[in-house]
């Protein structure tokens, strides 16, 4: 049953609840359709797409860590044309917003992707991945410097009329500077965080577990870092923030919202429990009701009111 109190509109993306699924953890949606009706979600973000198909990294690609996991998938994806031919037909039939996550080796790649995907009728937004740590070129390299981040966002902005969401990397000195640069270049929203750079060593082989040495850490272990960064970005920019990083329960989601997230995304949490996003949605409904909140928007960033630091409400 729809509950109006948790409706949210982020830069024109109308969602019946603020719970999305994070890019790279939900394939193209079909993988989880056997477990529940995915139209119950707030929105879906696709696996990261590149202009040309990408094979991804050689195995091993994942490694479990305390309360988390490292991944080095390497953006394996069928390329934008194959996506349009094979995945878009079923995605376009969903009743919820579908957001395409795009990644490029070059600034021009991002521009071409934006143009191509903008021709799809019904696509809700583009999430610009300037934060993938697992590729040779592009990805996180763009998101670690305010100027190159702005350059990519500008190129996407010029290629599309769709809402543009910049997905930021936590592997930076000042997340606020990157967020400000992305917004100045035309980003309509900020999503964060992508994975934290980490590594693991195989003590029997006496060498790094992953071929690329470093990999991306996700899961509950990163939640406090993600929450802090959502907090910081909320204070730095005026656009909506989509928060993610280690969310597995509705209580986690509430924390992100209170820190300043207008919506949240479940990533690694899907692997623990495919039903996690649904349980989080139910939890948010109960929480808003119990708190007497008629519009979840009232809660966004409200924890800032108690800290004496600058907030948009004070």
């Amino acid at each position, binding site marked *: 049953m729809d509950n109006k109190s948790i409706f949210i509109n982020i830069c024109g993306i109308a969602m019946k609840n603020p719970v999305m699924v994070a890019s790279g953890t939900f394939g193209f949606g079909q*993988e989880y359709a056997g477990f529940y009706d995915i139209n119950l979600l707030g929105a879906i973000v696709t696996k990261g797409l590149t202009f040309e198909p990408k094979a991804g990294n050689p195995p091993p690609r994942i490694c479990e860590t305390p309360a988390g996991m490292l*991944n080095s998938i390497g953006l394996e994806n069928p390329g934008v044309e194959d996506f349009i031919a094979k995945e878009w037909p079923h995605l376009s039939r969903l009743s919820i917003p579908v957001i395409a996550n795009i990644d490029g080796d070059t600034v021009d790649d991002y521009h071409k992707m934006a143009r191509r995907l903008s021709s799809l009728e019904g696509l809700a937004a583009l999430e610009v991945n300037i934060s993938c740590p697992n590729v040779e070129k592009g990805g996180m390299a763009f998101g670690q410097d305010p100027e190159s981040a702005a350059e990519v966002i500008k190129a996407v902005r010029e290629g599309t009329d769709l809402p543009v969401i910049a997905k930021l990397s936590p592997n930076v000195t000042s997340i606020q500077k990157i967020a400000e640069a992305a917004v100045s270049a035309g980003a309509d929203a900020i999503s964060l965080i992508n994975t934290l750079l980490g590594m693991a060593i195989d003590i029997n082989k006496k060498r790094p577990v992953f071929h690329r040495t470093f990999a991306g850490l996700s899961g509950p272990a990163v939640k406090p870092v993600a929450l802090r960064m959502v907090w910081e970005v909320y204070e730095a920019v005026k656009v909506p923030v989509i928060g993610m990083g280690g969310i597995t329960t509705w209580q986690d989601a509430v924390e992100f919202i209170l820190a300043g997230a207008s919506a949240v995304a479940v990533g690694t949490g899907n692997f*623990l429990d495919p039903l996690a996003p649904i349980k989080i949605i139910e939890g948010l409904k109960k929480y808003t009701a119990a708190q007497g909140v008629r519009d979840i928007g009232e809660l966004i960033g409200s924890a800032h009111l108690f800290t004496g630091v600058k907030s948009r409400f004070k």
Partner: protein
Amino acid sequence: MSLFCGHAKIKDNIEIAPGIYHMVLNCPEVAEDAAPGQFIHIRCTDALSPLLRRPISIAMADKKEGTVEVIYRVVGQGTRLLAGKKKGQMLDIMGPLGHGFPIPPWVKHPVIVGGGIGTAPLLFLAESIREHKLSSAGSPELSGCEDIMKTGNSCGKPAKEFIGTVFVGFLTEKEIFGAELLKDCGFKVEICTDDGSRGYKGFPTDLLEMYLNDGPSPSSGKVSPAIDIIYACGPSPLLSKVASMASRAKIPAYVSLEERMACGVGACLGCAVKSADGGYMKICKDGPVFEVSQVTDL
């Protein structure tokens, strides 16, 4: 398609060999749809570490009883927690997942090659092959092998017909499991151990090689039809030997692969295996069973 994700009651969880456990779960939803070679994805704890589920292949499924059985070896944090679960507790499982072993109608002489804990899914396979062969031959269906750990007469009557041949290897005699069930399913079972404590001293692939070179040993009695399909599950050296022997002998062969998994449903792309036509396939979704010519780097 509807997939099960929820809690199943543990009917039994017993150590059948040092460090090897047999768990019986009450889960009619999974039992109904399970095919041999598929797996269930088990959350070993409600806590956040270990974080990920553990994929364990289905060793038997009984639609009538609504039970699903697994046999697993304790190798790390997750399986250690699993071994500590008690009868009557609930277990969070997803499944059945993945693509299992195909059983083509033309199969006359299937050969099953198993190594160690890899024998587990082959028990379900053996029983399914027996059912397929008997039902397609028009024989009255025999009752299923209700408990895979019982020996001897648990299958009602052992199948009279010759169903196929099994070569299984274990480290040592103590670790042998499933042999009686395989026999009761109508398979001729040849056992070997790494230390020679029972049967041939060596690997099941040695036995397969001898068989392919020389045909059945005189002791096997009546001559069986030529091998027309090979199934294997076990450590990767076993799989790669089976693959090369099968392709040399031009016999179709299916192997079940293993890899650490996160999602288990093909969403995260974490369990990749190099495909023969370039790129990668997902072990959880495209497999875990592959025809050997589909994959490289076995």
